[in-house]
């Protein structure tokens, strides 16, 4: 009996090792065979990923996943979404539950270097800002000595705030809440003088105030929050595909290619445009997609500027005007810049 048990155990162990040895076919071929990309998004962040009235996910991060799907399948809708909490996002990516993480994730050294993950670029430059009542008469965050500040508990926001006040030798009182809705309600009710969170969050929550026009956002940005998509580090081809999906969207905007004129741009004579549209060269083979990959991205999802204006731009409820900010193209003085396709 004991012998039988032992031999069963050793067979099971050997089998386990054998299967574990035949590990990892590429993410791309796995994605192609299952027929969709599993994309990790937030559990609801205005403008970045949230379900719309029809029950479809929409937002800046969502459109990145749709662009990847357009590049791989020629169809932007072959994406399934996994809404993830901040805590679970990296585990979900590492365990293979998702193929790509587009969840307003700040690119930091610690995350990039220690988690076995790879950031493929930046699709939004965010930063922590302050909102105050106009009646407070404050024009700069440096005048906030002794203020009480409302913010979320246990996030980097809280740490940044403490760092900022300490570095400038100022006193403050922290009023922290669990959820964004509670923070904005407390600020609106006058529990604190300042409301601090990422700039995009300030813009999104501002519309929930009783009189949005009585408040203003101070010019200081006290932290760098470059948000970008993340993939696993063990698959360079998939990482390249993700990186060049983002780069293609940025390059398309720079070259003036958008979803309305992309069909005519296919016959453009400019060699840079030709390379991007896939009518010249065979760079697409290196990332494992068809030569019309970038065409499909721009045609079905749009270039970076279109996506930005659709979800967070001046004409959306978030009203994050792009002109003159870091999120403008480098040719307009911003930081949105992509290496060339050649």
């Amino acid at each position: 009996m004991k012998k039988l048990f032992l031999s069963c155990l050793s067979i099971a162990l050997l089998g386990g090792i054998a299967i574990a040895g035949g590990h990892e076919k590429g993410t791309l071929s796995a994605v192609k065979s299952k027929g969709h990309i599993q994309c990790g998004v937030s559990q609801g962040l205005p403008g970045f990923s949230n379900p719309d009235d029809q029950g479809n996910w929409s937002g800046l991060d969502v459109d990145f996943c749709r662009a990847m799907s357009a590049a791989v399948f020629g169809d932007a809708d072959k994406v399934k979404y996994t809404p993830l909490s901040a805590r679970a996002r990296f585990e979900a990516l590492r365990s293979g539950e998702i193929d790509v993480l587009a969840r307003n994730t700040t690119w930091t050294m610690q995350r990039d270097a220690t988690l076995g993950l790879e950031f493929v670029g930046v699709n939004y430059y965010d930063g922590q800002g302050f909102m105050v009542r106009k009646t407070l008469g404050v024009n700069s965050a440096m005048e906030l000595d002794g203020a009480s500040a409302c913010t979320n508990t246990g996030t980097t926001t809280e740490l940044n705030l403490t760092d900022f006040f300490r570095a400038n030798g100022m006193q403050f009182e922290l009023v922290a809440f669990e959820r964004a809705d509670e923070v904005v309600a407390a600020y609106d009710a006058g529990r604190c003088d300042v409301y601090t969170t990422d700039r995009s969050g300030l813009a999104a929550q501002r519309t929930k105030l009783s009189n949005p026009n009585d408040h203003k956002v101070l010019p200081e940005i006290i932290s760098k929050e470059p948000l970008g998509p993340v993939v696993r580090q063990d698959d360079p081809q998939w990482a390249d595909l993700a990186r060049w999906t983002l780069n293609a969207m940025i390059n398309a905007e720079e070259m003036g290619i958008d979803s309305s004129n992309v069909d005519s741009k296919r016959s453009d004579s400019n060699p840079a445009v030709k390379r991007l549209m896939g009518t010249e060269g065979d760079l697409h083979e290196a990332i494992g997609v068809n030569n019309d990959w970038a065409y499909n991205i721009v045609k079905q999802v749009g270039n970076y500027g279109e996506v930005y204006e659709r979800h967070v731009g001046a004409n959306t409820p978030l009203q994050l005007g792009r002109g003159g900010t870091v999120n403008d193209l480098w040719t307009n003085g911003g930081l949105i810049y992509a290496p060339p396709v050649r």
Partner: protein
Amino acid sequence: MSNPRSVFFVRKEFISARQAPASTIGVLGWIRNNLFSTPFNSLLTVALGGLGVWLIWGALDWLIFNAVWAGGNEACKVNPEGACWTFISTRFDQFVYGFYEKPERWRVDLILLVLFTGIFWSGWERAPARKWVGGFMLIPFPLIAWVVLYGGIFGLPVVETSQWGGFTLTLVVSLIGIIVSLPLGILLALGRRSKMPIIHSTCLFFIEFWRGVPLITVLFMAAYVLPLFFPAGLNFDQLLRALIGFALFAAAYMAEVVRGGLQSLNKGQYEAADSLGLSYWKSMRLIILPQALKAVIPGIVNTFIGLFKDTTLVLIIGLLDLLGMVHAAIADPNWSIRSVPTTGYAFVAITFFIFCYGMSRYSRFVEEKLNTGHKR
């Protein structure tokens, strides 16, 4: 002197009892005795009554009279001072079905219909074939429901569990948890009281282990850490993993509730069963368990209700139940209006209350039906 008898008055019948003073009886009397018996009490009554009326009026005003019932987000922007019910009605489908594919939603409707019919049928005493329906609801129905919802056979397209969500998911998780945890909990409770050392210590370890770890940890492990141990290619459904964790967790709690019932029985019951020559399982089935379970119905239902509310924790593993769906929907910038988050949470609270209260009423009903004179 005339006949003295005519002078004296002798009452021949009792005076009929008069009404007590109006201020001591009826509603008025009760109010006077209980609410206004002393000046301090009067003051308290007025203050608390005023507070109550003010609160209830405020709630009703916000929830009903001043609420926005139709017109989409524009209407709510105009009037942010009342509940924004049009937000709920616009997204009602989302809250019920989650991201379940639209052309396949009839499957959810069908399952819900069968579920509620089955519950009422097996609950209604004069219904024909009650026991059969009850048995069907307990064993084959959950399996059938899973197959119908998941699809993949009979030409039904597969709807992956990652697409399940909203109230459907809340019901799936809680029902599976409830249906699995009760029988498993009974077995564990019996095992813990067993005199066989291996069974006893295994059950003891199992119960104490699951009671000792937080549910969030269990779900997190099931969702993201277990797959790291699986060989590549072998992967079974994420929701199923979470459900197993959920059911085992609930079973451990259930076991302790049932054990309480077993211990409440007089030793004589066990001895009587033995003296009749019944086998262990027969004595449990015929004598011990019917009495033990009846005694702990409130505890069992308590565990069920707790389980039902714990389903919101599936948010941890990237599944959006009713609360998670509402959560995500609130983030839509087009609905970034002050009244929307509160309305969403109010909707979730009301829904949960209806179901939890329903369960508790049902348990009262079962208790009264089974009350055959052993009540202490």
